[in-house]
């Protein structure tokens, strides 16, 4: 069992776990992910690494309760653990001194963007970070992001906090006003990453996105996670998860992500604790 050392609740559906996994922590790098399985009947789900601590031997993940498995995960408390936890998987982000870079984290995507921004800043880049959420209460890690960025901009879709609008508004503003943006990292839900890629395309700024397709093993043996990049089929788990956002086939990725929608609803109905929200665990 991999023990949960810290649990933080950012909002009713967004939670953070710091999990004891020394072997993974020893090797983890920005841009990589883990796969976990809650219990014996559980499915394997991928989560991007939000932070790692080699001394404590821990990996931090942040997740949004979106279905049966993440709800079940969210019910776990400090001291409890998950049955399986494997990583670090995927290719690490390519970190160099590029000059001025922008790191955009949308919604839950703030978590995976965090170690990338930190590594970029440590490599000497001027890191302008932009984070956003639908509404104020879904926003997290503002201070943590500020700490690893040269500058931080924040947006909420409904204007309940800071800039009213989308992260892409702020991104366009930065590109227009500052110029000389070498690289953009955009991580979050598919529509947000697609919008980031669309925003930077006219400026021909290299834009890296972190694809989040359905995965099973995460080690390249099944191809469930295949994406089309520049008209070539890639396995996101071993070739990615980061790809050039201007080359990704977004329609395909969107459709493939919805592949098991009916089954996911069925699982939620079957596995939810049935409390309707009163049990205090979610």
């Amino acid at each position, binding site marked *: 069992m991999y023990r949960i050392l810290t649990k933080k609740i950012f909002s009713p559906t967004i939670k953070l776990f710091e999990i004891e996994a020394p072997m993974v922590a020893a090797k983890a790098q920005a841009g990589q992910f883990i796969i976990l399985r809650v219990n014996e009947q559980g499915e394997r789900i991928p989560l991007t690494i939000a932070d790692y601590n080699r001394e404590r031997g821990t990996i931090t993940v942040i997740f949004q309760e979106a279905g049966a498995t993440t709800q079940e995960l969210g019910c776990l408390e400090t001291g409890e653990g998950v049955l399986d936890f494997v990583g670090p998987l995927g290719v690490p982000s390519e970190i160099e001194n590029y000059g001025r870079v922008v790191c955009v984290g949308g919604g839950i995507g703030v978590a995976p963007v965090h170690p990338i921004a930190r590594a970029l800043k440590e490599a000497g880049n001027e890191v302008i970070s932009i984070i956003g959420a639908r509404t104020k209460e879904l926003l997290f890690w503002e201070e943590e992001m500020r700490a690893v960025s040269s500058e931080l901009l924040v947006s909420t879709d409904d204007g309940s906090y800071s800039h009213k609008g989308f992260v892409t508004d702020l991104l366009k503003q930065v590109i227009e006003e500052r110029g000389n943006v070498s690289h953009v990292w955009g991580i979050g839900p598919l529509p947000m990453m697609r919008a980031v890629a669309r925003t930077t395309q006219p400026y021909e700024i290299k834009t890296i996105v972190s694809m989040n397709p359905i995965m099973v093993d995460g*080690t390249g043996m*099944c191809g469930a996670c295949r994406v089309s990049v520049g008209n070539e089929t890639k396995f996101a788990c071993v070739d990615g998860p980061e790809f050039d956002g201007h080359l990704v086939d977004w329609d395909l990725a969107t459709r493939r992500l919805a592949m098991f929608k009916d089954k996911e609803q*069925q699982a939620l109905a079957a596995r939810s604790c049935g409390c309707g929200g009163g049990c205090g665990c979610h």
Partner: protein
Amino acid sequence: MPLVTEKNPMPSQDAAVRRKNFNEVALGYSEEAALAEAARCIQCAKPNCQKGCPVEVPIKEFISLVQKKDFAGAISKIKEKNNLPAICGRVCPQESQCEKYCNIGKKAEPVGIGRLERFAADWELAQGVKAPEIEASTGKKVAVIGAGPAGLTCAADLAKMGHQVTVFEALHVAGGVLMYGIPEFRLPKRIVQTEIDTIRKMGVDIQVNAVVGKVTSVDELMEQGYDAVFIGTGAGLPYFMNIPGENLIGVYSANEFLTRTNLMKAYDFPNNATPINVGRRVAVIGAGNVAMDGARTALRLGAEESYIVYRRSAEEMPARHEEVEHAEEEGVIFKLLTSPIEFHGDDQGRVVGMTCVRFELGEPDASGRRSPVRIPGSEFYMEIDTVVMAIGQGPNPLVLRTTPGLELNRRGNIVADEETGATSKPGVFAGGDIVTGAATVILAMGAGKKAARAIDEYLKQK
């Protein structure tokens, strides 16, 4: 004693019933049937059967013990050479191995060696399996990468020789293809689990969730004090055809389809959380054992029609005859000399059909098989809503990419000595599908056994 010309039949589930469940198809011999079958063995003065067995099971000797009703003695005899007999008795292609060399086989059906091995192993499983004796510790440490048939065999043999063995496995359970690939209805997972538990009892440390190439590397293992490394990472990289529409929803690799079903138990969704979608008409592309497993699994998951689509003819099908027969009995439909050239989808991106072409057989190619030649103008459309690509697997590159100094061949397999498994890197041995390309469980076990012997020699000289 008059010669009984036919093998004692193995009772099995009725085809009409079994095509809808995941329970084991072949039910195994009763004690009575086992004794009757063992009696068919004439205990040749010069037996040939053993030379057909890649792990050198003393066949004549163990059958003699079955004849004497000494089942405990029989299984001990088998286990002198074979660490996974309940598995081998089920999945080995005996017709091309031990039973092919059976002297009785010249005049009649060969002795059912596999069925008797299975009987002895199942008898022991019912009694409770004891771990075999191991030799005094040598103080040497060996790392085994991959807990499939090659790795497990190598690990168990090394442990018997007194070496300290750690197995690193990427998935959350050991077993490799025995757990994720071969379906429950051919090889019940509790049997694999029991055999693996026995190997653990021998002192082998199996670390799951450990992806070598990510969490550590071969060189790091050597630096950490392992005296030798065995690579048995298999052929786990699925091939696709690279034709239009292959990324449509409903197109699976056989690895994904079988992993969801077997390892993750998607057939028991939502009690097990992993989903799988199977439509009404399923096309499995390919005709090896993996394809048969896919087509038979599709029926059990509720498909109304399950097709094997293969570009050569029945004669060239690489699957075991028995598997093809079982598939036919269960209602799998064979579309031979046929191959898809494009998959078509609906507005949701779900596969709804495929364009196929027909082939005829031309001259034999370098491998001796007659190569299929496409018939011009033979295109036709086939309505299907699920596709399983079972056209083969290649070597997974995770370990290979992170191991400098390891010589690979053109196809990306490790170059290793056939007798010893020695690679171009000192102290590093390899065996199984990672060396040969996708082959059989028993050949992988044979390679694991040879490598264990060579590693033992290497460690003695070190």
